[in-house]
């Protein structure tokens, strides 16, 4: 039989007749007690050794306890000084006794209170008188004796009352430890008699070791498997991309196709098609990022005409237009899109992928640009989730059902639909939902059924419902980030991105 060196040494040191503690054996073998314990259990598993455990109380003196054991308990020193000064006959002034007993600082109070407790005498008006106690033996104070016993590891014989007292005086500490002791089993004895050899231990597993077959006869050196390993990060998809992909997965699963299109676009696609009047406050220069490039020539003329007509005259026999100026030059001006609804307009008009027949579902998760002030919850550019459903007939209930389904995928339930106003949808709803963590009611999107004034010029003759939501808002809800700038943009904190928890 081959055993690792530590196990072999332990097996040889153990006895079949005498129980030995692991601590004893470790000292005997000059090994680390933890290694001996481990070896003992491994041998026990082989049936060669029996391991017993019991809980033992260890009592040790504190620093103060050790000091009193050397120099004497303060009250005893006071008692002795008093006896020497003749206080057993008449009162002796305290100050003198404190000096004689060499009491200092807090020891004075300790001496006085315990002097009184032990009934050594009376302290009155700064003078000490010893009680008349013929049985008193200065060398037989139970507490002093207990200190001595603890120091000599003989605490087991002591009365627990004395130990409690000394513990409350802060002179000793009691701790519980598990003591393991071992004895050789019969199999262990047999094995030893048959002869046990030490096995070779190796570090690395090398190709030679494997090919030579030597691996069958070696033991592998143990590692401290609990020690810290080097920190490694690996690569990670950005948390906002991850969230975007999660949204895309959900939407594709619900039958939506993805749209793409230009970030810089004519205001015509961004706003005019959406029936946003040209003098709408959101279209003023301080809300949009106008680009310093020539106006866009390439717009479908017939569509431009129909959109202008919708703005000026409305749609249908009972429709009214806006009483706002409409200038084709403004419609052709190029700006960074303030919403990805510009893509929806391109797709619905048939100019992105050809004419669309109902039913259709489309979405995009792309960046939009708003001339806002940067703060923890606002960025100049952020991702907008945009989606729409086209069908012959859609009702508000279909809209509610679609969004209830979508938001439930993200743990947001109990949707409320607050009637709202958008120039491009009617009816319109702000969506509110219950925060998955706090239960608070929060705004989670804007939605509605596209107006006739939007759809009719685009040539769409059925119903289209649409909604939008900032992806960053969903991210902050899902992850609880407080400052979006830590995540998105060049001010991001690499540590945060490296350590952010994975969600799926």
């Amino acid at each position, binding site marked *: 039989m081959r055993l690792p060196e530590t196990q072999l040494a332990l097996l040889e040191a153990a006895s079949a007749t005498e129980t030995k503690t692991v601590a004893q054996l470790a000292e005997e073998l000059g090994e680390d007690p933890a290694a001996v314990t481990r070896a003992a259990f491994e041998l026990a598993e082989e049936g060669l050794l029996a391991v017993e455990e019991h809980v033992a109380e260890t009592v040790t003196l504190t620093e103060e306890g050790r000091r009193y054991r050397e120099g004497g308990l303060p009250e005893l020193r006071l008692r002795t000084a008093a006896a020497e000064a003749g206080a057993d006959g008449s009162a002796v002034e305290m100050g003198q006794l404190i000096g004689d007993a060499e009491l200092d600082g807090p020891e004075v109070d300790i001496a006085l209170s315990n002097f009184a407790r032990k009934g050594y005498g009376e302290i009155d008006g700064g003078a000490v008188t010893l009680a008349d106690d013929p049985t008193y033996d200065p060398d037989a104070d139970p507490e002093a004796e207990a200190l001595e016993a603890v120091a000599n590891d003989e605490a087991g014989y002591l009365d627990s009352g004395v130990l409690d007292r000394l513990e409350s005086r802060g002179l000793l500490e009691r701790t519980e430890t598990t003591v393991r002791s071992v004895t050789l089993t019969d199999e262990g004895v047999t094995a030893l008699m048959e002869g046990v050899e030490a096995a070779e231990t190796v570090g690395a597993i090398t190709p030679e070791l494997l090919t030579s077959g030597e691996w069958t006869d070696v033991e592998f050196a143990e590692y401290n498997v609990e020690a810290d390993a080097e920190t490694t990060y690996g690569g990670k998809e950005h948390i906002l991309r991850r969230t975007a992909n999660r949204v895309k997965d959900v939407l594709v699963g619900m039958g939506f196709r993805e749209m793409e299109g230009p970030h810089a676009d004519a205001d015509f696609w961004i706003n005019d098609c959406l029936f946003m009047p040209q003098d709408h406050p959101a279209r003023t220069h301080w809300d949009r990022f*106008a*680009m310093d490039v020539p106006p866009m020539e390439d717009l479908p003329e017939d569509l431009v005409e129909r959109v202008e007509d919708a703005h000026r005259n409305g749609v249908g026999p009972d429709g009214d237009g806006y009483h706002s100026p409409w200038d084709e030059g403004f419609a052709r001006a190029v700006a960074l899109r303030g919403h990805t609804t510009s893509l929806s307009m391109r797709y619905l008009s048939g100019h992105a992928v050809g004419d669309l027949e109902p039913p259709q579902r489309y979405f995009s998760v792309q960046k939009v640009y708003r001339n806002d002030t940067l703060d923890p919850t606002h960025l100049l550019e952020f991702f907008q989730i945009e989606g729409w459903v086209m069908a012959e007939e859609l009702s508000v209930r279909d809209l509610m059902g679609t969004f209830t389904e979508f938001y439930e995928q993200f743990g947001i339930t109990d949707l409320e639909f607050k009637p709202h106003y958008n120039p491009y949808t009617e009816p319109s709803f702000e969506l509110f939902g219950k925060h998955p963590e706090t239960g608070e009611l929060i705004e989670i999107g804007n939605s509605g059924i596209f107006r006739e004034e939007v759809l009719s010029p685009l040539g769409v003759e059925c119903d289209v419902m649409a909604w939008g939501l900032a992806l960053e808002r969903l991210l902050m809800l899902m992850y609880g980030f407080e400052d979006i700038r830590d995540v998105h943009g060049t001010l991001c904190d690499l540590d945060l991105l490296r350590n952010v928890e994975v969600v799926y």
Partner: protein
Amino acid sequence: MPVVDVDPEELRTLAGAEDKSDEELKSDLFALGLEFEGETDDGEFELEFAPDRLDRLSVEGIARSLRYQYGHDRGVYIPDTNDAEWAIEVDESVPDERPYVTGAIVRGLDLDERRLESLIQLQEKLHATMGRDRAKGAIGVHDLAMLKGGSPGNDTENNGPQKTITYRGVDPDGDRFVPLDDDADRTPAEVLETHPVGETYGDLVTDLDRYPAIYDDIGLFSFPPVINGKRTEVDEGSRDLLIEMTGTDQWTIDRMLTIVCYALDARGGQIEAVDVRYPDGTVRRPDLSTDTKRLEHERIETTLGVDLAGTEVIDLLERAGLDAEPEGEPGRDETSRADAVDTDVEIESVPKRTGSPDTAPGGSTDAPAGTDEGPVYEVEIPPYRVDVLHPMDLIDDVGRAHGFNDLEPRYPDVSTVGGRHEGSRLEDAARDALVGLGFEDLLNFHLTSEAELFDRMSLSPDDDTLGGLEPPTITEPYSEAYTVVRTWALPSLLSVLENNTHRAYPQDLAEIGLVAAVDESEPTGVAEHRSVAGVLARTDASYEDAKARVAAIARAFGVELETPPTDHPSFVAGRTAEIVLDGEPVGVIGELHPRVLVERDLELPVAAFEFRLEGLAD
């Protein structure tokens, strides 16, 4: 979104809701779409709402909506209007840029401090919304007692009003008047220079040859859209008011006037008409005529997704402050209303604002209402409803009155096939490859500054190399840090390195994102691309490390990589190569130049690459 301050006590009184607690009131307001945002120091509610129902810009209008909600009022209400005693003459000298005026008189008001404040607030909020900061419409309110009417001009018929004021143009340095909050008489030009309000709104008139002004027999008393004269200032003692509005659109100022008239009517004022005499004809104002729209029953049901009885629809419309009855059958009135008016007469009295009612709409030409399509309602809309452009706006009213949240959600029974766009699939596949190579995927702003793109990279927009392109520029940027769209992505990654020098190395960062450049050949004038960029910031980073990774990506996508030497000002000469994928030059790879590193306070070498994503496509 507009915010209106409303005294809850006053709201209770006007709405007949004395017994409502603050919480009940807030909840009722929320149901109308008015969100409680907080309280002012004086304990007034700050209510925020979407800018459609501009008739709710004052406590009187909000109270009116609540009264309908509570059922205190039903149907359309039109205030009574007395005949005109006053006229506004529009002179030929009126500036062409601001040709329109309208007006009304309201008599017998009992204004206290709060009512006056409410009127001023309504005026300000209307300026901010419909009035587009006074550019489209500006309101002046005057104490009628302080005005002296002129004699009627050329009106020979002598049956019109006898008292006139005149809207005309004035030389900027012409007539003088004492403006509000001032003590000296000034010319309009002086007002613009010296008066704080003049400085704020001066831009609206400075380009005009003649400034707009309104005169009575005594002289100039109003300088729209800037400021009124002090002489006609309204205070708590004013009982009779002249309200005038000027602007660039007649409809807009007429509707603003209507909203003010309804508010003052709710305060017990008596409205009196004013004749506006344009050179080519006279109109009588305020125009409190109603509009009528046809609403198909079936369209209500398909939009809301519920079945409704005809009587129910009419009830809901009346609770929304509208009147309705089935078209073509005024006799067979489904409703319980006993006072149904003759709809034909109503319709004729309504001026059609748009188009001509050429053909009978909705395919119900030869069949009266009540056929397969279900009934069609004639819905009468009060003049303060500036938001109703189309019958679908009335369906929204029906839905709100019905309660949208009482509708049961249902998943639409519509099948479609979902899928990702090819461009976004390619981007994701490339990102997976980068992450597999150990890169931390980043997401940076597309907007940046020229200093970041060029100066800090030792690059010039004229350099014919990666990043050396004319960036699309924002015409009126707010912040110096964000003035252009980036032409390349490496500067963003270097900024992240710069901001994270206290974090553990190695820092291997990558990004796939938008880059753009001015390009006349593109329809939008802007060429947009997805760019793949990576940096390896590590103590032993070298050209080889970067190339190994680019090569791994090229292999993964089955494209051939060549790296002929090239020069780029951001990289070390002799350690820079062009990235050529399947024969197309698409980017640059190399070791960044120490001057670029030192500029970013980086104390270790950085190997980097950037190339167009389309280089990986099939």
